[in-house]
């Protein structure tokens, strides 16, 4: 009798573990399955959509709850440098862009926990109200501003942070090609020759 009880307990525990593990794996591995990619950026048009599938909806709820649907705003993410390495607080990057075809856009840095980095630099983002959007522009992504005209502070962002480009009321079909998206390049890293 005791053996049968233990067998049922083991069956339930293993079943729960398998179910939870497979769900976690599906949401991690499946994250890339519904994303679109262009240049260094990736995004999903299913964000907020009433037509999103259950896996997409779960990932968006976890990583971007209350995000607007793609008809209103597109959220594009960048989390690797030009060498496909994770972004690091101790590196200095330059973001270069030009005109982005949207009524308003911003680029914000988020720490790996999906919140703003824990610093008091008040340099969380850049946005089109502060940049001459019709001419080429650059922004420094680094723990200190230096001489940069535009700066997003990565202080306390640790390793694995990301940048989110919000494009509100973007032109239809945005992004048409990679040329309308900013590009990131590494200026220096402690273990990389300048």
């Amino acid at each position, binding site marked *: 009798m005791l053996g049968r009880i233990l067998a049922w307990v083991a069956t339930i525990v293993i079943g729960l573990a*398998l179910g939870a593990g497979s769900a976690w794996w599906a949401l991690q591995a499946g994250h890339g399955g519904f994303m679109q990619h262009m240049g260094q950026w990736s995004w999903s048009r299913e964000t907020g959509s009433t037509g*999103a599938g259950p896996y997409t909806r779960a990932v968006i709820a976890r990583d*971007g709850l209350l995000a607007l649907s793609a008809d*209103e705003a597109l959220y594009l993410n960048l989390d690797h440098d030009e060498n496909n390495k994770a972004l690091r607080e101790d590196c200095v990057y330059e973001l270069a862009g030009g005109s982005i075809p949207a009524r308003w856009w911003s680029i914000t840095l988020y720490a790996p926990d999906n*919140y703003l980095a824990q610093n008091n630099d008040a340099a969380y983002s850049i*946005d089109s109200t502060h940049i001459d959007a019709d001419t080429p522009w650059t922004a420094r992504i680094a723990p200190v501003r230096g001489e940069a005209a535009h700066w997003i502070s990565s202080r306390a962002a640790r390793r694995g942070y990301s940048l989110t480009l919000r494009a509100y009321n973007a032109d239809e079909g945005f992004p048409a090609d990679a040329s309308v998206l900013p590009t990131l390049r590494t200026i220096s890293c402690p273990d990389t020759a300048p």
Partner: protein
Amino acid sequence: MSEARTYVVAGLLIAIATHFAIVFGIPRVMMHGAFDRVSAHSAHTNEWNEAPRVTAASRTIVRPSPDLHYDACAYDLSHGPVVMRVAAWPNYWSLSLFADNSDNFYVLDDREAHEGAEVTLIRAGHEHPKDAARVVESPSDRGIALVRRLAPTQSDWDAAHTASAHDVCAVLH
């Protein structure tokens, strides 16, 4: 069926049920948590709750924009339709509605409503109130309404704070 096979089948059924319970449950659990935070544990439903200006200390909703002013209303239609009014704002603003499964089922912005807007929210399938100009059907009794106003500077944010004082989120009487 042998006893061993019974355990294997039972284990697989439990695994499948757990898998789908988690996948389908995550959006509702996340929304329930957000509803709780916005409404202070349901003490402030059907009213706008202004979020403080977004800083590194902001932890209510993931990935907040520091360039926007946010007002959130945790709506509950169990007592009837809810009317939402949004005062005009000279720059980008939007009213977005999210069902309890996190779907963004409605958005209205300043391109369509330059002078501000009034929306009457009802449960899907219920009778539309008379004289309500813009009626929106919610797929769930509970959800979250969010007003975003573009406010990248402190002075913009202060102005948005003043404008938002005229916003309304209340049960329709």
